[in-house]
């Protein structure tokens, strides 16, 4: 039982607010849902749309099927989305939404109220009672929502597509909120950034959290400043993160290399959007994997995570900070516009304890780059004891002074690179979903996880068993990570939201694992479950 509704209109017409308010209310009403948005790089005009999938079971992807309900705020909607309305589906025409706006203005003195009225209509459609809806409404908007029930009654829409609430009390997050929350839970206390879609909302949420927590956000003059501020803060003692999109990350390359050389722990979130250059700034793609993998000149180790669910995002974002500290390396979190802008409820419990750095104390003989048996130098921070902390971007000796000694160079390179062997041992395993005996396995990474999983479920239900192996850690890749899944004997399909099949190349170069077929998409949108099911079916036939 589910209801797929699309709310579409020009930027600034209120579709965004309807989505926000609807998901907010749905989460208070204990509904399962998934919501996402599709918007242009402009503030007013154009054509945007917001999709909410409401269900009586957990849903974590865009169904992509035909709509049960279309809400038109502009003329374009008729042309673009009505053709995909299912037979007997509900169409709130532009005239109808205009009538709603009219009424809202008359009754409440503000057009903005019409967003809540529309929310009321949608709630009525899925069969929530007017009373419950009013209770769950945003403060001061109960009356607006009730008005929606009047419209629904008038238009005979009440309980037209009933969906029951079954989620229980759960919190909703979008992908970027999850990333920022995970960071805070991982002990991150400092973020510096420069706005850039789709990373800006990571900064926004961090700032929101900083209102009541011991965190600092600094808006930098550019991305180069941002990442260097972050490295400065990390050196000074705070766990710290930078967050940006591909173009901003391009400006951080030299500092990524600096982090590698100075062994300064840092976490960098890269929210992907279609490139090259400015590309499609508000759309989605998974095409910066190779870029992040090779970011920064010279050779030094790194870890890259690309979580696929809200829970995994919170967990891996948290974990990034511990790993960055433990191995004194840059750790990357790859996400994308689709994941960033998708709102979901999280079924699992989120542990809220906040991790923190260690602040070991040393005496005046402290050497920041001491060569140790374990292969990791002791990390501490200035001003704690008599120990002086000296970082150098040149090749350096154990103290942190410039050196040009060839032997020292080799020892330092070996030390830095040697850390990889250590953190390979605690690699995050990929997650397998579906029938372990299936002869076909779909490999994927990052935000496509739950789309692929639902598609695989449908195929399995249709009699074609398919397994899914999703990589939340995309680098490094080790043989141990894939060993349990018997991939060699299976037909392997790799699904990626890019044109180059970047992850499949990585599987080849790192694990010598070829894939039989690639499923790629690079028109700026994510896969939908329907579309992917169809494509996979075609390949498997």
């Amino acid at each position: 039982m589910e209801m797929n509704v699309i709310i579409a209109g020009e930027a600034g017409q209120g579709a965004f607010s309807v989505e926000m308010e609807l998901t907010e209310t749905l989460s208070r009403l204990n509904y399962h849902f998934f919501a996402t948005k599709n918007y242009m790089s402009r503030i007013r005009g154009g054509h945007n749309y917001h999709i909410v999938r409401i269900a009586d079971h957990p849903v974590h992807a865009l169904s992509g099927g035909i709509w049960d309900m279309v809400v038109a705020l502009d003329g374009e909607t008729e042309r673009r989305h009505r053709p995909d309305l299912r037979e007997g589906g509900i169409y709130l025409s532009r005239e109808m939404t205009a009538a709603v706006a009219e009424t809202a203005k008359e009754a409440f003195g503000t057009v903005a109220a019409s967003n809540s009225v529309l929310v009321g209509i949608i709630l009525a459609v899925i069969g929530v009672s007017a009373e419950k809806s009013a209770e769950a409404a945003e403060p001061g908007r109960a009356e607006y929502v009730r008005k929606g029930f009047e419209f629904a009654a008038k238009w005979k829409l009440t309980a037209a597509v009933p969906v029951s609430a079954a989620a229980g009390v759960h919190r909703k997050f979008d992908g970027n909120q999850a990333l920022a929350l995970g960071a805070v839970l991982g002990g991150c206390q400092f973020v510096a950034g420069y706005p850039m879609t789709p990373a800006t909302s990571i900064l926004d949420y961090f700032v929101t959290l900083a209102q009541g927590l011991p965190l600092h956000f600094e808006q930098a003059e550019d991305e180069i400043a941002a990442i260097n501020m972050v490295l400065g803060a990390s050196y000074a003692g705070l766990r710290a993160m930078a967050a940006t999109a591909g173009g901003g990350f391009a400006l951080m390359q030299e500092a990524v290399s600096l982090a590698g050389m100075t062994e300064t722990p840092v976490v960098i979130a890269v929210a992907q959007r279609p490139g090259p250059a400015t590309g499609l700034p508000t759309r989605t793609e998974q095409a910066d994997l190779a870029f992040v993998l090779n970011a920064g000149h010279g050779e030094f180790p790194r870890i890259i995570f690309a979580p696929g669910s809200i829970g995994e995002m919170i967990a891996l974002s948290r974990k990034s900070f511990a790993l960055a500290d433990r191995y004194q390396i840059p750790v990357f979190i790859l996400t994308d516009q689709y994941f960033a802008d998708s709102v979901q409820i999280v079924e699992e419990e989120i542990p809220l304890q906040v991790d923190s750095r260690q602040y070991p104390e040393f005496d005046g003989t402290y050497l920041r780059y001491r060569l140790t048996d374990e292969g990791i130098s002791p990390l501490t921070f200035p001003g704690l004891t008599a120990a002086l902390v000296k970082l150098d971007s040149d090749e350096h000796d154990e103290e942190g002074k410039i050196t040009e000694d060839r032997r020292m160079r080799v020892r330092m390179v070996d030390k830095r690179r040697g850390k990889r062997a250590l953190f390979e041992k605690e690699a995050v395993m990929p997650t397998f979903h579906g029938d372990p005996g299936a002869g076909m396995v779909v490999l994927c990474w990052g935000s496509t996880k739950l789309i692929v999983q639902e598609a695989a479920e449908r195929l399995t239900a249709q009699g074609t068993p398919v397994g899914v192996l999703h990589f939340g850690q995309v680098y490094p890749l080790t043989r141990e990570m894939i060993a349990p899944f018997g991939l060699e004997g299976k037909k392997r399909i790799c699904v990626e939201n890019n044109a180059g099949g970047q992850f499949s190349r990585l599987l080849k170069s790192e694990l010598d694992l070829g894939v039989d077929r690639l499923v790629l998409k690079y028109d700026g949108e994510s896969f939908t479950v329907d579309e992917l099911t169809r494509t996979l079916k075609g390949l498997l036939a």
Partner: protein
Amino acid sequence: MEAKSDIAWCPGCGNFAIRDVLEKLLPELPVPANRIVFTSGIGQAAKMPHYLKVNYFNGLHGRSLPLAVGIKLARPDLTVIAYSGDGCMYGEGGNHFIHTIRRQLDITILVSDNQVYALTKGQSSPTTDPGAINSLSPGGNRNLPFNPVALAIAMGAPFVARGFAGDKEHLTELIRQAILFRGTALVDILQPCVSFNKVNTYQWYRQRVVKLAKPATDRSAALQTAERWGEQIPIGVIYQDDAAECRAGAEIFRRGATAEEVACQIDMKCVMMR
């Protein structure tokens, strides 16, 4: 301390004099060495912290200031000094120079201004005189000179000074004041480069520097002083505004949040509309 021979500067370089000043001054400050942090970029000047008994983060060419900003914001208890050359601070790092001033933090900016990119062998820097000839400007440097002192004053820096490596005593006082000043303080230090700048030598500067009696407190007057260059080059504190606001860093070091605080924060905010 370093044997002088381990220092990678040319004999006679103005940086030695500045190092002498710092070596003597730093222990006199009311801050222990382990609470002093230098950031620096890349260049001859940027090697300075390696030759002092301090914490340092010797980062990338042009990027000493954002490092300093990050450190100061994270640890207001540390005394933060950004040290670099004219090319590093005003060329590659020009954007940080103007925007760091806007942040009104308590950071000291010291610049060995030798009017040349020395480490890369003598190309024009932003402060190189127009017409100066070097490998990449065989026809003479064609750019208007960058006046760091005027720019800092125009951007609103509350403490702006020019020093001269050839007058250690005077320089010591300038740097002392700059470090003790609560707010962004710039000391642009005229630093003879014996290898690549054959024009702006010790002697050339000695014939021109004039010490200011006291700083202007009026920006317009200060800007006029800042514009003076040529036969007379004013050194000293050119502008000082003791009443200027100074923003403190965040007092969050080693103050982690509890799970309860987080729960409360996300309950309050997360469920509200953005």
